[in-house]
C-alpha cells in the first residue's frame, strides 16, 4: 500500500481568521484560544488595578491630601487588591497554564473542553459583578480581605457593594474549582506515550500542586462568602458584632494564604523551565524540586492563622502557626538553591525572559526573608497591618508573581503568536520595572517600622512625607514600564520578528510544534524519553516537525 505524507486538515473557521468571526471566540473550546482569552482578561485587569494603585499613591504622596475622599479611598484599596489578586495574577496564570499544559504533556486539548469554556466565561461574569458594586452606592470598602463585621449591614448603609463582591467571589471560586479539576484530569489522563510522571515538565508539576490547592481551598472561600450573604440578607449572626467575627478570618485565610501559593507556584514552575533553557543545563535536583512543591502545598494549608496573631489566641496555638510558617522557608530554600545550582557552571544567555528570572530571584529573596520576620509572633505584633506588610506582600506578589509572569510571557509569546517580542523594548521594560519596583517597595518597609498603618486614607505625620513622595514617584516609573510592556505586546503581535518553531532551543514539547500551534497541537506526538524530550530529539538529530505519515484516501 502506498503512503503519502499529508497534513491533517485544519477547521476552516480557525484557519481563515484570527479575530473573526466573533462567534469563534465566543464558542471555542480550544484550550489555546481560551488560554489567550484568560491572559487578555488578566492583562486588562492588570491595567485597571494599576490605575487604582496610581490613584492610591497620589493620595498618599504628601500628608493631608484629598485627591479622593476617605470612603472612595477605601473602595479603591479594596478594588486594587481584589483586581490584582483575583482578576489579574490568578487569571493570567490560569490562562498561561491553559495554553501550555496540554501542549507540554503532548495532549490535543484539555480533558473537559466544555468545562474549560464555561470556567473561562464565569470570569467576566465575576469581574462584572464586582465592578457592578460601584454603581450600587459604593463597592466593597473593607479591604480585599473584607473583614466582618465591617462588611455587615449595620456598618455599610444602603450600598450593595459587599453583596456584589461576595457573589463575584463565589462565581470566581466555582470557576477556579472547574479549572483545577480540568487541569488535574488532563495531566493524569492525557499524557503522551512515554510521558511518565517523572518526566513531566516542572511547570506541569507546579500546575498540579496549584490545582490541588485551589480545589481544596476554593470551597471554604465560597462558604465564607455565602455566610456573609446570609448575615447581610437573611439576618443570621455568624460574623456580626453579636456573632464570631474572628471565625470569618479563619475561613478567609484558610483560602487566603494558600492563594498566595496559587499565585506563585506556577511562577516557580516557569522559572524551573526557563533557567535550564538559557543556562543550557538540565534542572538541578528534579525530584527535590517536585518534593519541595508538595511540601509547600502541605505546609501552606497549616499556616493561615499567622495573619491573625493580634486577635488574641493562645500562645501555644500562635507558636504552632509560627513554626509551620517558618518551615515553608525549607522547601522554598530548596527550590532557590536548586535554581542557583542549575545556573552555576552554565553558559547563560541573558535574554529578556532570563533577565526577568534573575530579577525575580533577587527580589523574591527579600520577600522571603521579610516573611520570616513576619512569621515571628512577637515581631509580627509590631509589623502586622503596617506598611511593612504592604512592602512584604508586594515583594512576594510583584517581585515574585508579576516578574515570573513577565518572564513567562517573554518566553512563550513567540510560541503563542509566532512572533518575537522586541528585545530593546524588553530590556527597557525590565530595567525600568526593576528600578521602579525596588524604588517603590524597598523603602516602604521603613514606613511600617516607623508606625504607619496600612489602609489609612491619609496621614498628618510630616516625618512620613519624604518617603511617601519617593514611593509615589517610583510607582509612576512602574507605570511607565508597564506601558512599554503593552506597547511591546501590541507592536510585536502585529509586526514582530518571525519567531520560528523553536527560537530558544527549548527542552519541552511546546517547542516541538509550529508557532502558533495548529488546533490539534501536534500532527505527530514526538517520542518522550526524558523530561527534556525536545532536547533528546535535537541531540539525536531527529526532526520533531515532520508531519505524521497517514494512509492516502483510496
Amino acid at each position, binding site marked *: 500500500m502506498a503512503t503519502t505524507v499529508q497534513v491533517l486538515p485544519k477547521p476552516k473557521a480557525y484557519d481563515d481568521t484570527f479575530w473573526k468571526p466573533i462567534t469563534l471566540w465566543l464558542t471555542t473550546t480550544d484550550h489555546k484560544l481560551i488560554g489567550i482569552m484568560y491572559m487578555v482578561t488578566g492583562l486588562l485587569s492588570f491595567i485597571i488595578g494599576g490605575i487604582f494603585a496610581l490613584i492610591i499613591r497620589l493620595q498618599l504622596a504628601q500628608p493631608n491630601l484629598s485627591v479622593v475622599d476617605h470612603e472612595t479611598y477605601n473602595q479603591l484599596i479594596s478594588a486594587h487588591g481584589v483586581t490584582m489578586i483575583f482578576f489579574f495574577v490568578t487569571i493570567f496564570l490560569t490562562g498561561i497554564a491553559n495554553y501550555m499544559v496540554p501542549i507540554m504533556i503532548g495532549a490535543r486539548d484539555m480533558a473537559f473542553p466544555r468545562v474549560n469554556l464555561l470556567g473561562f466565561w464565569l470570569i467576566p461574569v465575576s469581574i462584572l459583578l464586582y465592578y457592578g458594586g460601584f454603581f450600587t452606592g459604593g463597592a466593597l470598602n473593607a479591604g480585599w480581605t473584607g473583614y466582618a463585621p465591617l462588611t455587615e449591614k449595620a456598618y455599610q448603609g444602603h450600598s450593595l457593594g459587599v453583596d456584589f463582591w461576595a457573589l463575584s467571589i463565589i462565581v470566581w471560586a466555582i470557576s477556579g474549582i472547574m479549572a483545577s479539576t480540568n487541569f488535574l484530569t488532563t495531566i493524569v489522563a492525557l499524557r503522551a506515550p512515554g510521558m511518565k510522571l517523572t518526566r513531566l515538565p516542572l511547570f506541569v508539576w507546579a500546575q498540579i500542586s496549584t490545582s490541588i490547592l485551589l480545589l481544596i481551598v476554593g470551597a471554604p472561600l465560597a462558604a465564607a462568602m455565602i455566610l456573609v450573604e446570609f448575615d447581610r440578607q437573611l439576618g443570621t449572626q455568624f460574623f456580626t458584632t453579636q456573632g464570631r467575627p474572628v471565625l470569618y478570618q479563619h475561613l478567609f485565610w484558610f483560602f487566603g494564604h494558600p492563594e498566595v501559593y496559587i499565585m506563585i507556584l506556577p511562577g516557580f514552575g516557569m522559572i524551573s523551565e526557563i533557567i535550564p533553557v538559557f543556562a543550557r543545563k538540565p534542572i538541578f535536583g528534579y525530584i527535590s524540586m517536585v518534593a519541595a512543591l508538595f511540601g509547600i502545598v502541605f505546609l501552606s494549608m497549616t499556616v493561615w492563622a499567622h495573619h491573625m496573631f493580634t486577635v488574641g489566641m493562645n500562645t501555644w496555638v500562635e507558636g504552632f502557626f509560627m513554626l509551620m510558617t517558618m518551615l515553608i522557608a525549607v522547601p522554598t530554600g530548596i527550590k532557590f538553591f536548586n535554581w542557583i545550582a542549575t545556573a552555576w557552571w552554565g553558559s547563560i544567555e541573558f535574554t529578556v525572559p532570563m533577565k526577568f528570572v534573575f530579577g525575580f530571584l533577587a527580589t523574591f529573596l527579600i520577600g522571603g526573608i521579610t516573611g520570616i520576620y513576619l512569621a515571628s509572633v512577637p515581631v509580627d505584633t509590631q509589623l502586622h497591618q503596617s506598611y511593612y506588610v504592604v512592602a512584604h506582600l508586594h515583594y512576594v506578589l510583584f517581585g515574585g508573581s508579576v516578574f515570573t509572569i513577565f518572564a513567562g510571557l517573554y518566553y512563550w509569546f513567540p510560541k503563542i503568536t509566532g512572533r518575537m517580542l522586541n528585545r530593546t523594548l524588553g530590556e527597557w521594560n525590565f*530595567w525600568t520595572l526593576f528600578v521602579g519596583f525596588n524604588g517603590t517597595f*524597598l523603602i516602604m518597609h521603613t514606613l511600617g517600622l516607623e508606625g504607619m498603618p496600612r489602609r489609612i486614607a491619609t496621614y498628618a505625620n510630616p516625618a512620613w512625607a519624604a518617603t511617601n513622595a519617593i514611593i509615589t514617584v517610583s510607582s509612576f516609573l512602574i507605570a511607565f514600564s508597564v506601558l512599554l510592556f503593552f506597547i511591546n505586546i501590541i507592536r510585536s503581535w502585529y509586526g514582530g520578528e518571525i519567531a520560528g518553531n523553536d527560537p530558544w532551543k527549548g527542552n519541552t514539547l511546546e517547542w516541538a510544534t509550529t508557532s502558533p500551534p495548529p488546533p490539534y497541537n501536534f500532527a505527530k506526538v514526538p517520542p518522550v524519553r526524558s523530561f527534556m524530550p525536545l532536547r533528546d530529539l535535537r541531540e539525536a538529530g531527529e526532526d520533531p516537525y515532520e508531519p505524521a505519515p497517514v494512509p492516502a484516501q483510496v
Partner: protein
Amino acid sequence: MPPRSISDSISGRVAARGARSHGADILGAVTARSLLRLWPLAMLPAAFALGSCEAPGGVSPIFPAPVSPNGQGIYNTYIGISIPAIIIFIGVELALLWVVIRYRRSKQPAGYIPPQIHGNTRLEWAWTAAPLIVVLAIAGYSFAELQKDFQPVTTYDFEIAVSGHQFGWSYTYPEGFTVHQEGTLAGDVTPFVVPVNKLIRLRLQGTDVIHSWWVPAISGKTDAVPGYDNFTWLKIDTVGTWRGECAELCGAGHSTMQIIVQSMSQYDYERWVRQQLATQNASPKPS
C-alpha cells in the same frame, strides 16, 4: 501640655540610649551597604533618604526605641532575627551576582558546553537541613519571647479598660472615670495618661467593628474585637508622650483614630486623677 511629635520622642530616646541605638545604626549601615552594591540604580532613592537618617523620621531599619519592657523584648527579637537574615541575604545575593557575572555566555570560552549535572543528593540534603536549622532556631527564640511577654499578665498594678469604637478610644480607669479619645485627623486627641514604672494591664474591648490598638514605641498591636476581651500590658519607664494609630481598617474614619499616650510621674498622675474625678463629678453621672 501639647503632645510632642512622634519624631521628637524617637530622637529623645535615641539620645538616652546611645549604646544600643549605635548597634542598630551599624546594622542599618550593613544592610544599606550590601544593598548599594547589588542595586546601584534601584537604591538611589533609598540612598537619598538614608542620607537624612540622622534627622528625626528619616528612613530607619528598626522600630522606634521601645519604652516598655515588652516592646524591648520585640525589639531584641527583631535584632536577633536580623543577624541570620542579613547573612543569608548577603550570601544568596552574592551567589546570584556571581552567577550573573561569571557564567554568562560571553564570559565562557567559545563552544563551551556546560556539565550536564542532574543533581547532587548530598548538596540537596545540605540545603534542606541548613534552612531547617536556622528557622528552628529563629522559631525557638521567638517562642521564648512569646511566652515571656505575651502571656496574659496576672500580677499588675492596676487595669484600664480600653474600648474601641468608630472612631475613637475610651479608657476607663479603676477610679471609675473614663477618658474619651475621639479621633481627629490632625492627631490632637485627648491623651491617654498613665503613671511611669507601673505595670498596667490593658483590657481591649470592641463595641462595633474590629479595631487594633497600636503605639509602636510601647509594644505591638492588640485587636479590640467585639464579643471577647483581649489583654496586653505596658510599663513605661520614662516621662513622655508617644503616638499611635488604629491599625485595623474600621471604616471611613480609620485614619482619624489617632492615639496619644502620655506618661507622668506618680505625683503628677495622682494630681491628674483628682482633676479628672472632679470634672466628671461636676457633670451629672448615671448612678
